[in-house]
């Protein structure tokens, strides 16, 4: 849609589709130059940080899960990590492995949802996966089977796919039965085949040219593993810092057009979290079929084209399937489903890699465990500034495109980030103004 206001040109999308939550995009062009890009997040705020105050230290995992129905496990596990850190408790390896298995399930479910239902229709010219299924039912069925495999892990380990009930501070309420783990094996083996077919499929897509110089931020795990649930924060600029430093090194700013806070690196600029950042900083940690697929389909060591993030997401799905299968091999039970986490007056920090990128939680607890203060920084609000910069660069390079096509491409560019607007609200409309 185009509006001419006082000789300027305004391109806008009122309500972005195939994203999680509500937002709009506005781009202003004056004398052939993009002068302003605003990702307007009008998703109404829900004030989680405020309503967490006064709650018990065992409650944030279930409460913060409700920030996002697509990645509730990310919220649950990051909250657990932060609260356990505050209370000075470290969970045993068996519990950590089981959490990692649950997280793999969420990665598979979330990535399959984004690749097949939200993003792939853009590349193939369809309005939705349902429309795509009319012509290529096999592709959509492959994606749904993959997504269902992720949900099977969530349901077997967590109790249900959306807002699992089995996660608690200190571990789990109940350990999985051996039968449940045996049932998951063939499901994940099929998922691994489907994920490899997904890498082949998405590598063959046509990608618009766009190379962006953003700084990347991701976790780097201590052991030889791709980052999911632990590690130090690392930037492509060479910075390494622990979760406790997040609040000092990442500055959140509020802008008038968004209910999502914008994050920047202190003393630096905008940065990017998510699959591109994780892959650039941890590609050497991929093993087996995921490493082979990344090589075979030419991802290189660093991917700077946000449109190709769909390939990285597919490779990460391969990784998550392999990792889940490997945990099924390794896991031989645990003495207890959870360890005690007695409260104490302290501050705890947690950082994990949600499917969309780095997720940070911080809780200040009273001696009786009551939450005095909570701070949550989700991936999408961290990516908002980079997303606006990408759109400015992309629109500037494609001003010759017809209006409808340019708008469609901008929406696709936004979906490169799999923005979770529901999460970020603490996100989009496209408007382009041209002279």
């Amino acid at each position: 849609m185009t509006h001419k206001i006082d000789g300027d040109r305004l391109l806008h999308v009122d309500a972005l589709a195939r994203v999680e939550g509500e937002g709009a995009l506005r781009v202003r062009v004056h004398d052939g130059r993009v002068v302003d890009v605003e990702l307007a997040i009008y998703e109404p705020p829900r004030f989680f940080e405020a309503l967490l105050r006064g709650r018990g230290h065992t409650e944030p995992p279930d409460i913060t899960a409700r920030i996002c129905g697509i990645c509730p496990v990310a919220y649950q596990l990051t909250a657990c990590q932060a609260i356990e850190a505050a209370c000075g408790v470290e969970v045993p390896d068996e519990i950590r492995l089981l959490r990692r298995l649950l997280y793999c399930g969420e990665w598979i479910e979330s990535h399959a949802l984004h690749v097949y239902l939200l993003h792939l229709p853009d590349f193939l010219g369809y309005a939705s996966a349902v429309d795509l299924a009319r012509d290529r039912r096999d592709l959509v069925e492959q994606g749904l089977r993959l997504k269902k495999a992720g949900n099977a892990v969530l349901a077997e380990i967590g109790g249900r796919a959306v807002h699992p009930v089995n996660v608690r501070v200190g571990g789990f309420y109940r350990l999985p039965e051996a039968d449940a783990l045996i049932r998951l094996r063939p499901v994940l083996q099929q998922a691994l085949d489907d994920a490899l077919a997904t890498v082949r499929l998405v590598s063959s897509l046509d990608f618009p040219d766009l190379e962006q110089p953003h700084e990347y931020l991701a976790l780097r795990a201590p052991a030889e593993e791709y980052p999911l649930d632990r590690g130090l924060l690392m930037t492509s600029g060479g910075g390494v810092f622990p979760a406790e430093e997040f609040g000092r090194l990442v500055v959140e700013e509020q802008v008038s057009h968004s209910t999502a806070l914008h994050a920047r690196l202190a003393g630096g600029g905008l940065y990017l979290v998510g699959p591109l950042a994780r892959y650039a900083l941890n590609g050497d940690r991929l093993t087996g079929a995921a490493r082979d697929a990344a090589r075979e389909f030419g991802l290189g060591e660093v991917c700077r084209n946000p449109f190709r993030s769909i390939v990285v997401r597919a490779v990460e799905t391969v990784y998550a399937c392999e990792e889940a299968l490997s945990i099924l091999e390794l896991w031989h039970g645990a003495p207890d489903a959870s360890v005690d986490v007695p409260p104490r007056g302290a501050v705890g920090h947690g950082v994990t890699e949600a499917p969309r990128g780095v997720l940070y939680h911080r809780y200040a607890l009273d001696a009786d465990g009551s939450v005095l203060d909570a701070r949550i920084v989700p991936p999408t609000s961290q990516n908002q500034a980079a997303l606006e910069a990408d759109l400015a660069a992309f629109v500037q390079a494609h001003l010759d495109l017809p209006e409808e096509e340019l708008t469609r491409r901008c929406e696709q560019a936004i979906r490169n980030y799999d923005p979770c607007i529901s999460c970020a609200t603490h996100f989009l409309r496209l408007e382009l103004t041209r002279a």
Partner: protein
Amino acid sequence: MDSSLRRPASDPPASARPTLAVWKFASCDGCQLSLLDCEDELLALAEVVEISHFLEATSADAPGPYDLSLVEGSITTAADAERIRQVRRLSRRLVTIGACATSGGVQALRNLAGVDEFGSEYVAAVYPRPEYIAALATSTPISAHVPVDLELHGCPVDRTQLLEVVTACLAGRTPQLPAESVCAECKRAGNVCVMVAGGTPCLGPVTRSGCDALCPSYARGCYGCFGPAPGANTGALVALLRADGMAERDVLRIFRTFNGPVDPVGTRREASR
């Protein structure tokens, strides 16, 4: 790219199938995701209904009217209070899905604060520039704003129940939904009672069923995510919780979660006042 992958230029013919719209207000997207989580049924469903508006799933957007609207989320802004009236006008049947739409949701915990406290304790706690934020001091269910044909409870809704509601609405019959408490499902599942045998606080006796007694099956007490069961005797449960030594603060916490603040001594909730 293999050119056979790209969509052919011609559009599919217009159909006379019933139209389905899915709307989102303040929420986590989890209940509408439950529709996309029907991996085995989604494509079959899309053959019998025309998905006319479903932002999370499609960029196609038909203007309505719609035969069935599923509404997720609660009303927390003046703009949304107006938007739900438009949705109602465009919808033959309007079904609310999930705790946010049916009760105000976890974000309705703000309703416990007064308007002044909402500004100082809520908006200012999250946003350094509260003046940029246009939010109401309350989060209210859809039924507080427009007539609702059916409410489907749960945080999140159960996807089997969601499919039952959609198919029943399309067939013009009454959906078969349980109206008992989690306790009844739990007994049928053969679980040992977590509260009687294990002393674990459990909201099963007063919570609407539909989850197959999920939490007690995972050795945890029900935390009430399907909201109060019809005719729930919360007073008797509170007495039992207190007798088991639960502190008053924890009794309040357990009743104040995903279906807004529930008044434990009987009346349905404070949120709708």
